[in-house]
C-alpha cells in the first residue's frame, strides 16, 4: 500500500512531559516528542545501527580519534533559519559545558574539540580513541538545537521548541496534551505522512488502557505486561513486542559484607528461578538473562551459560562462604516503577530455600534516590538498554563509569573496554568485548535475571509504527493512517 497522507495520530502515555529541554530531559514520554521535533547528527535506526539524520554522511580516522560529519544541504529549523555547522558546534559545546546539566555529557565526554570546517562540515577530535562515536552522536539527548536558542535564556529551552525534525510543536500542555504538526520543510522528501501527532497524558495506567481500548487513541506508547494479553487479543489492535536489553539488576557492593565474597554473589545467582521470574513479573514478556548485562541484541554479545535454579548449590556456596545457617539481608527497592519491588519480592521468595532470609524494604523513589542509590549495599536498580557495548559498560561497570555503583573497580576489565572502543577493526573489538563479558560473568558484579521486552500497541489503521529496543527513537515520520 502506498502511504496515505494526512490525519492526526493520537498517542497515549502515562508519564508527564515535564520539559522539552533536549539537553536534560529523561521522561519516557519526552523522548518521542523530541524525536519528532529535533534531529541529531546521527540517529539509531530500527536495526540498532547509526543512520544518517542531520548528517547525511560521516567518516572516522582509522585510529578512531577524529570524526567528520557532512550535514544535509538546505535544512532549516522550524522558525525558518538555516541549520548549519555552527548550530552543531553550539549544541555540542553546550553538552560539554560543566555548568549546563546535560544527560549526553557522560557519553560524549571523550570529545576534545568540535569545530565547524565550513557551513556543512563539522569535525570532532577525541581525547581517546572511540570507535562507536557515530552511535554516541545519536544519543537521544544530543539533538541539534539552534545556536541562537542556546545563546539565549536556557529557561526557554524547556518550553520553546525549534528543531529540524519532521514535526513542529503546536501546543504544549504538560498536564494534558502536547500537539505537534507536520513540518512541511522536513528534509526527507514526502515525509512525514501525518498532519499532526497528539500526545495524551493518562497518569493512571488503568485509565490509559481503558481509553486505548474503547476511546479514540491510536497508539499506546507503553503497554504494561499485565495488560498486554488483553490488548493484543482485542480486535483491531496490533500489539508490538520488541525484545530489548532493558533489565532489573541486583546491586551488590564489592566493598561491603557479605557481597565482598564471590561465593555469596554466586549463591544468590543460583537461588533465582529466572524463567519463573519472567513468567510471574513479566507475564512471560521477556527473556531469562543469566547475569550478562548485554542482551542478544548486542553485536558482540557472547553465548552466555545458563544458570538453572539450584537452591542446593546456592546453599552449599553459602556454607562455603561461611554462612552455613543462611544469611539475613535487607534488600532495598524503590517503589517506582513497581517492577523493582516485584522482582525483589520474587527473589526473596525464591531464595528462601537456599538459606537467604531477605527482608525487602521498599521506599518512595525520592527517598531511594537520596539515600540508597549508589550508597546502599544491596538494592534493586533498573536500566534501559544502551546503544552500544561500550555505552553499557561505561554506564555502570568500568572504574570510572558514570554511575559506577558496585565498587568492583577491575583494572583488567577497564583495559578490555578501553581496547574495544579504541579500534575500528571488528575482530579486535569482538575479542576485547568477549573477554570483558567473560570477566564480568566470572566476577558477577550484578545479578541480572531477565531482559524485559518493550511493549507498545497501535490500532490496526496505524501503519509503519515501530520502535527501537532502546525505546528512544520512534520514527513517527514513517507512520500513516489507513483510514
Amino acid at each position, binding site marked *: 500500500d502506498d502511504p496515505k497522507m494526512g490525519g492526526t495520530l493520537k498517542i497515549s502515555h502515562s508519564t508527564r512531559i515535564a520539559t522539552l529541554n533536549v539537553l536534560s530531559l529523561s521522561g519516557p514520554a519526552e523522548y518521542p516528542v523530541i524525536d519528532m521535533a529535533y534531529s541529531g547528527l546521527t540517529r539509531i535506526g530500527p536495526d540498532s545501527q547509526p543512520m544518517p539524520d542531520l548528517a547525511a554522511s560521516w567518516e572516522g580516522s582509522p585510529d578512531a580519534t577524529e570524526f567528520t560529519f557532512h550535514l544535509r544541504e538546505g535544512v532549516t529549523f522550524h522558525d525558518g533559519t538555516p541549520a548549519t555547522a555552527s548550530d552543531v558546534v553550539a549544541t555540542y559545546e553546550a553538552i560539554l559545558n560543566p555548568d*549546563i546539566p546535560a544527560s549526553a555529557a557522560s557519553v560524549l565526554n571523550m570529545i576534545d574539540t568540535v569545530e565547524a570546517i565550513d557551513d556543512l562540515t563539522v569535525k570532532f577530535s577525541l581525547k581517546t580513541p572511540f570507535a562507536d562515536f557515530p552511535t554516541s552522536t545519536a544519543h537521544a539527548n544530543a539533538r541539534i538545537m539552534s545556536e541562537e536558542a542556546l545563546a539565549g535564556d536556557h529557561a526557554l529551552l*524547556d518550553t520553546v521548541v525549534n528543531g529540524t525534525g519532521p514535526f513542529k510543536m503546536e501546543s504544549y500542555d504538560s498536564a494534558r496534551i502536547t500537539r505537534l504538526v507536520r513540518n512541511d520543510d522536513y528534509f526527507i522528501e514526502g515525509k512525514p505522512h501525518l498532519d499532526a501527532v497528539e500526545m495524551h497524558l493518562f497518569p493512571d495506567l*488503568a485509565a490509559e488502557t*481503558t481509553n486505548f481500548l474503547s476511546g479514540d487513541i491510536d497508539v499506546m506508547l507503553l503497554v504494561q505486561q499485565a495488560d498486554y494479553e488483553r490488548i493484543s487479543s482485542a480486535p483491531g489492535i496490533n500489539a508490538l513486542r520488541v525484545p530489548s536489553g532493558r533489565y532489573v539488576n541486583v546491586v551488590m557492593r564489592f566493598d561491603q559484607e557479605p557481597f565482598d565474597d564471590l561465593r555469596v554473589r554466586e549463591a544468590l545467582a543460583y537461588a533465582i528461578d529466572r524463567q519463573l521470574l519472567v513468567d510471574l513479573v513479566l507475564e512471560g514478556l521477556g527473556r531469562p538473562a543469566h547475569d550478562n548485562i548485554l542482551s542478544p541484541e548486542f553485536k558482540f554479545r557472547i553465548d552466555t551459560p545458563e544458570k538453572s535454579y539450584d537452591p542446593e548449590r546456592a546453599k552449599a556456596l553459602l556454607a562455603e562462604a561461611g554462612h552455613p545457617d543462611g544469611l539475613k539481608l535487607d534488600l532495598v527497592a524503590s517503589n517506582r516503577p513497581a517492577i523493582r519491588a516485584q522482582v525483589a519480592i520474587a527473589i526473596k521468595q525464591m531464595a528462601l530455600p537456599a538459606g537467604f532470609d531477605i527482608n525487602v524494604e521498599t521506599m518512595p*523513589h525520592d527517598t531511594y*534516590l*537520596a539515600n540508597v542509590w549508589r550508597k546502599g549495599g544491596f538494592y534493586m536498580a533498573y536500566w534501559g538498554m544502551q546503544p552500544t557495548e561500550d555505552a553499557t559498560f561505561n554506564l555502570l561497570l568500568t572504574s570510572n563509569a558514570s554511575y559506577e555503583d558496585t565498587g568492583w573497580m577491575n583494572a583488567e576489565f577497564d583495559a578490555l573496554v578501553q581496547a574495544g572502543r579504541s579500534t575500528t577493526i571488528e575482530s579486535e573489538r569482538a575479542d576485547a568485548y568477549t573477554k570483558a563479558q567473560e570477566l564480568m560473568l566470572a566476577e558477577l558484579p550484578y545479578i541480572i535475571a531477565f531482559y524485559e521486552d518493550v511493549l507498545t500497541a497501535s490500532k490496526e489503521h496505524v501503519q509503519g509504527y515501530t520502535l527501537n529496543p532502546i525505546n528512544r527513537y520512534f520514527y513517527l515520520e514513517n507512520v500513516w493512517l489507513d483510514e
Partner: protein
Amino acid sequence: MTLGYLVRRLLAVVLVLFVVTFAVFAITMILPGNAAVMILGEYGTEEAVAAMERRLGLDRPWYIQYLDWIGGILRGDLGQSLRLSLPVSDVVGDAFWNSASLAVTALASVTVIAIPLGVLAAIKRGTVADLVIGIFSYIGASMPEFVTATLLLIFLAGPALGLFPAGGFVSPGESLGGFSSHVVLPAATLGLILTAHISRQVRSEMSEVLSSDYIRAARLKGLRERRVIRRHALPNSLAPAVAVISLDIGYLLGGIIVVEEIFAWPGLGRLLIYALENRDLPVIQAITLVLATVYALSNLLSDIVIAILDPRVRYA
C-alpha cells in the same frame, strides 16, 4: 455581619497562610533530596546535580530562598516551577480551573442530591426509605475514594460496559458534552462520600428541627405539612447543613487529590502529587496556598450564608 468582621477574618486567613507556607518551606529544607536530584533521577551525577541546583537557585541558603519567594508573592509572582519549567502561576492557574470545574460539579450535584435525601430520610424516619438512605450513606462514608474510583472504573468504564471514558479531561469550553462524559466518574467518586456525609447530617438536623417546639406549634396552627416542612423546618435545618458542607469542602479538597490522580484529571490534586514526587517546592507552596485559601474563603462564605439563613446569627 460587619465589614470590620470580614476584614478581620481575611487578615486571620492571611496570617494562617503565612504560617503554613513557612512551615512547608522549612520542612522541605530539612529533608534529603531536592528538585535537582529528582529531575535528573538516576542520570544525575554529582556535577550534573550541582549544575542543576545552580540553575534552579537551590544552592542558596534556605532563608534567602524563602525571602525571595515571599518577596515574589508580595509582588504577585509565584515563581517558576522547578520541574515543569513554567511560571507557577500558569501551571497552577490552569490546574485550578480544571479542579474547580470538577469540584463545583461534584459539590453542586452533592448538594442537589444530599439535601433532599437527608430531608426525605428525616421525614420518613423509621421507614424503608430512611433505612435505604441510611445504608447507602454508611457504605458511602466508609469507602475511600480510591476504592470507589477503582470499582466504578471496573464496572462502568470497563470493557464490559464502557459507559464513560476511564479518565481524561475535556474543558467545558471545548465541548460541554465531552466535559460531562468525563466528569461523571470522578464527580461520582467524590460525590459518594460527601453525599453520604451531608445527607446524614441533614437528616439529623432535620429530625431535630422536626421535633422542636416551633414545628409542633406550626402544626398545631393547622398548617399543611408541605408548608411546615418547606417554610418552617427547612430553613432551620439548612443553616447547620451549610456549616457541614463548608467543612466538607476541606474533605473535598483532599479527596480531589486522589480522584484526579486516578482519573487523569489535570487539576491541582494531580499537580500536587507530581510536585511532591519531584520536590517542586514553588508548586507545592502555591497549591497549598490555593487550597488553604479556598478552604478559608469557603468557610467565610458559609458563615455569611448561615448569617443570611439564620437571623439569630450575628457576627461583629
